[in-house]
């Protein structure tokens, strides 16, 4: 069995605060994993570690069989990442940015332009928006970040909150793209707070809370084990229930 992603006792601490605690996880190639957790649960920290933006305090990460500590460049060549805050080069135009990213992955100009046109058409960005990325709306930036994550045809894709701030039509398009990628053997790991979307899209679920892995496995199995009706109930039960009550001054 080949794994696209392996965490072994992965820990990340910021001073005394442990953001990710002893995480061990293996994701098979071609999976579509939904990584869930409350705010501050450690999802984005985990994604930042696996994409090389943060260094683990201890433990190891392997992507497509390669060790991140020694083969980070080879790994980066094969992964696509859309960070939570997108992290675009805002003083370029959208097409310039994609050309820059594509060239960095060693793609020919013609290939980049053809893929860009296809992605822009699919994500409703055609004709290419004028002006700098800094002037784009939030949704347009999100779409552009997704284009940048996919333009080099990566084998593993990490998407941090891909559906946040996106309209319903584009959201549907993104889901279609992700399903299509998975059917071609691409491994996808995404985080989201929208349970309905994750429930419909991700057959595999991992739930983090306070940096610890509370549950991992196929959604159907997790639901059966916890006796939950849906993903939301499963999630709320695992992370400790809902705080109820009224605000004293309202």
């Amino acid at each position, binding site marked *: 069995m080949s794994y696209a992603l392996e965490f072994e006792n992965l820990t990340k601490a910021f001073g005394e605060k442990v953001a990710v605690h002893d995480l061990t996880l293996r994701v098979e190639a071609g999976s579509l994993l939904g990584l869930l957790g409350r705010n501050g649960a450690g999802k984005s920290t985990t994604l930042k570690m696996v994409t*090389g933006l943060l260094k683990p305090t201890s433990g190891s990460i392997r992507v497509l069989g390669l060790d991140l500590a020694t083969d980070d460049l080879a790994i*980066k060549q094969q992964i696509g990442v859309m960070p939570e805050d997108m*992290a675009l*080069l805002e*003083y370029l135009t959208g097409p310039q940015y994609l050309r820059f990213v594509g*060239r960095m992955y060693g793609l020919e*100009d013609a290939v980049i332009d053809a893929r860009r046109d296809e992605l822009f058409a699919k994500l409703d960005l055609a004709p290419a928006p004028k002006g*700098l990325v800094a002037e784009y709306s939030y949704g347009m930036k999100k779409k552009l970040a997704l284009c940048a994550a996919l333009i080099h045809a990566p084998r593993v894709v990490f998407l941090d909150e891909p559906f946040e701030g996106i309209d319903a039509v584009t959201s549907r398009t993104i889901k279609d793209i992700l399903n299509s990628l998975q059917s071609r053997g691409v491994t996808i790991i995404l985080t989201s707070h929208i349970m309905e979307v994750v429930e419909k899209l991700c057959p595999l679920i991992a739930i983090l809370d306070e940096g610890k892995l509370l549950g991992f496995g196929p959604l159907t199995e997790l639901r059966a084990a916890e006796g939950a009706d849906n993903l939301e109930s499963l999630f709320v039960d695992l992370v400790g229930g809902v705080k109820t009550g009224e605000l004293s001054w309202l």
Partner: protein
Amino acid sequence: MAVVGPVRTLLVAHLQAGWNRSRKELGKSGRTAYVITLTMLGLFAAMPMVGGSLVGGYFLGRGLPDPILIRILGGILAFLALLGGIVGGLFSGNRTLGWESTRIFPLRLRSLFTAELIAGAGDLLPLAMATISACLLLGVGVAKPVLLMLLPLPWLGTLLAVLCIRYLVGSLSARLTKHLRLALAVLAFFLWITTTLLPTTTRRITEKGRSPSAISLQVKQGLKHLVKVVDHLPSTQSVRGLGDALQGRWGLALSRQIYPMAMLALLLLAAASTLKHDSNPQASDPVKKGSAEKLWSFSTPMLGVARLQWRAITSSHLGRFQLLIPLMVLVLIKGPFASIKGATIWTLPMAFAYLSMSGIQIQLNQFGLDGPGIKALLLLPIRSRDLLVGKTLGLLGFLGIQVALLLILLSLVGKLGPLQALAGVCFSGCLFLLQVSLGHWTSAWLPRPMPRDSLKNNNMAQPVIWLGMAGMLVGMLIFGGIFLLTNWLAPALLLPVMALLLGMLFLIYKHQVLPAAARYLDGRKEVLVQSLG
């Protein structure tokens, strides 16, 4: 419930943010190093400055109400206000507080203006000017204790003038840089003035007055003009009031303060109305023009980073402003420096040194203009070494344009031979390599996001500013010293010596600095993401 005023809230938030950022960035060892640096500066710069001003003030005060000493004291106070205001405005920009985060609050312009002025007083130059003027006037007070009651007036006048001028100059330079063509036109006008009118005047003086008595007459006439100007300065009027108080004419003493106060009120009004314009959200929009649609292509990731760095610099206000530096250098060389005896030997290295200095903010904070985009860079498959080389090439390209502009201008005014020009380029290259090498460390050690749409560059961490100044000083002393000595002892060897020096530095950079800096960067990527992202 206690109601906290908005000015105090703004200032407390500003101080807390600054303190928290320093604590986070510096760490324990960094704080120790910083305290040591500040102590050294205090001992070797601040103490003599304070002592000198006190003593100077005491002697000036003892001689009051001598009209000459009144003029000297008034002139010094005006000089401090102008120096602190103009230099502070040019190099630190106009803003100290982050306004963007305050726009959603119901904040009056008056509160914002007051908070901005008070926060600005904490910046290096206004603080230094305020200290010097306070010590100077305190010295006067020690000499003539009867004046102690009146002395806060000229001091407050000087401090507020520094802050208002700083704000106005910072705002004006930011606006000029937004409209590069206008700035170029203004500078071209000054250039024309200095290259045509000044030499003519000088010639007239030398032609008419070859005899020592004629020269002395010219000097006397010049001094008369200067005295007239000084007499009309608000600070001189304020100090003249001190003289009247000493002679017991308290009514006149107080009435003499009306003119400086009125001028100060005008300055405050001008600064407040400028701030009103600047605080309009439309005024601080990012640079939207010049976003050429041309797509790039490059053969290696290194060249891609270089192209990106070039774009980041040229599309930023700071970068655009730096394109004006060659013109400013020429104005200095043709203007004030031209009249200094023996200036020809050091004007050329000074010109190149000044040019190299102008890029130091970007060189010491090489990822600053990337801002949150640093994540996009670090996610790409590129080695740290290539990232650094790319940055260096981008910076070198920009310096190349500046040097080329300077060479063209210098040759147009007939100040340069080809050998000297090449030697100057080598000298500039030496300083560049030194600053960029230092910048590889400081950029990874204490990175700060740099605004692209503002000239405000004091966003740099304080230790980096001190380190940069020290590095620059060392570079100018060593390389400038070699340049001057060779030019003096063996002018024919100037080019070979400077070329050899540049070659040696390049080899050190390539084989020693770059690998070590890349290793350091590898370990600091997390800090870059946290600080800039």
